[in-house]
């Protein structure tokens, strides 16, 4: 299955690369690096026995690279959710299609979310849930004042053998020099995908942790972020995000809650 997905994606990329040599191709190599300090209050779905709330000052390193139709947006902060790598297959005035690589679920292990190297009896014996490495297509379209995106990705390079369908819409408000955007959407996780994270296999079962097989699941989320240019190279950012998972997620013997939230504020220097 994975080989078929990779083959299809490479075939599409190759086909459109030949067909779409047009005015959008830009040979300029663009890069941007940002370094900042942020206060982050993060509450992830509560893993049984593990620390799931994190409140700290953290460093943030952002890297953005753009060359021809390739782009990379990398975020170091865990609250930002990793990297986006993409290739713009089709670029039209108000819509387009990209091939994308990204992560859609945060990993954890028997040490909790961030390898705390502490023994957690409630999670003893579970296998590591590695970060998904999903590849797929992103279709985006401008609808009125909104930018709508639909992504269909398969965990091609990860271990779940599952797929995710992601929808979202973003509305941007320019309030003088402030940039404020509001985003909301939903994720549909295939049974394989979500079961890899929250299911309990036979070899992981204990007396207090029964075997659990998850079916498909849905989550909904909303985010808001505000950015303001403090000076020529400095930007203030603040944001908040809330995610709610489906009720069957809560039934997993591994977690106590199906909510997640993040609040952050800080400044970054843009090189």
């Amino acid at each position, binding site marked *: 299955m994975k080989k078929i997905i990779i083959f299809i994606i490479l075939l599409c990329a190759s086909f459109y690369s030949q067909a779409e040599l047009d005015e959008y191709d830009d040979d300029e190599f*663009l*890069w941007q690096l940002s370094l900042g300090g942020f206060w982050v209050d993060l509450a992830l779905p509560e893993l049984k026995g593990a620390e799931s709330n994190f409140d700290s000052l953290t460093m943030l390193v952002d890297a953005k690279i753009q060359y021809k139709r390739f782009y990379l947006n990398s975020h170091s902060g865990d609250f930002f959710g990793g990297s986006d790598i993409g290739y713009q297959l089709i670029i039209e005035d108000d819509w387009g299609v990209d091939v994308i690589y990204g992560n*859609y679920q945060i990993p954890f292990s028997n040490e909790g979310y961030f390898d705390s190297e502490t023994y957690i009896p409630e999670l003893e014996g579970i296998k590591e849930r590695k970060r998904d490495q999903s590849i797929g297509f992103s279709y985006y379209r401008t609808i009125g004042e909104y930018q709508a995106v639909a992504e269909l990705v398969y965990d091609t390079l990860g271990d779940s053998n599952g797929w995710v369908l992601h929808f979202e819409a973003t509305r941007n408000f320019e309030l003088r020099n402030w940039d404020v955007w509001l985003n909301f959407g939903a994720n549909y996780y295939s049974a394989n995908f979500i079961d890899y994270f929250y299911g309990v296999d036979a070899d992981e079962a204990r007396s207090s942790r029964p075997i659990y097989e998850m079916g498909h699941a849905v989550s909904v989320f909303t985010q808001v972020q505000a950015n303001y240019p403090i000076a020529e190279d400095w930007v203030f950012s603040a944001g908040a995000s809330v995610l709610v998972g489906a009720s069957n997620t809560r039934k997993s013997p591994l977690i106590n809650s199906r909510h997640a939230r993040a609040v952050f504020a800080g400044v970054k220097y843009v090189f």
Partner: protein
Amino acid sequence: MYFKLVSVNALTLIAGMSVHQPVLANGEGATEILHAAPSKCVALNEGRTCYADVKFSINTPVVGDYCIRESTSKKILQCWAQSQSFEFVLGFGSAESMSYELISKSQRDVLAVTTIEVNWVHKIRTKKRRWRLF
């Protein structure tokens, strides 16, 4: 960090006592007759309109009738009669750097020019504005 226009900053011409013989005064001791603060406006991205309340301080050598106008469009922003020292607050909003001129109302000579630079922080406009919680 990325300059759209980085030149002609506060080019100050002083007319001296006579508007017929303007004198370029960039040396020490020269009085800046047209001063704008802030002289820079920073937007997040290229192409964004940058907003700022810019205060023009004008100190002319002699009492007279003066106007401030946009250099390109020649649109008059405000005039003052029989004045020598005065101030003006402009609600600046532009995606590009803009120059403003102090002129003698009677002679229409340009006595001084100052430029409000528009810069921006991000070279790359983020394709996607969202971030994943996970």
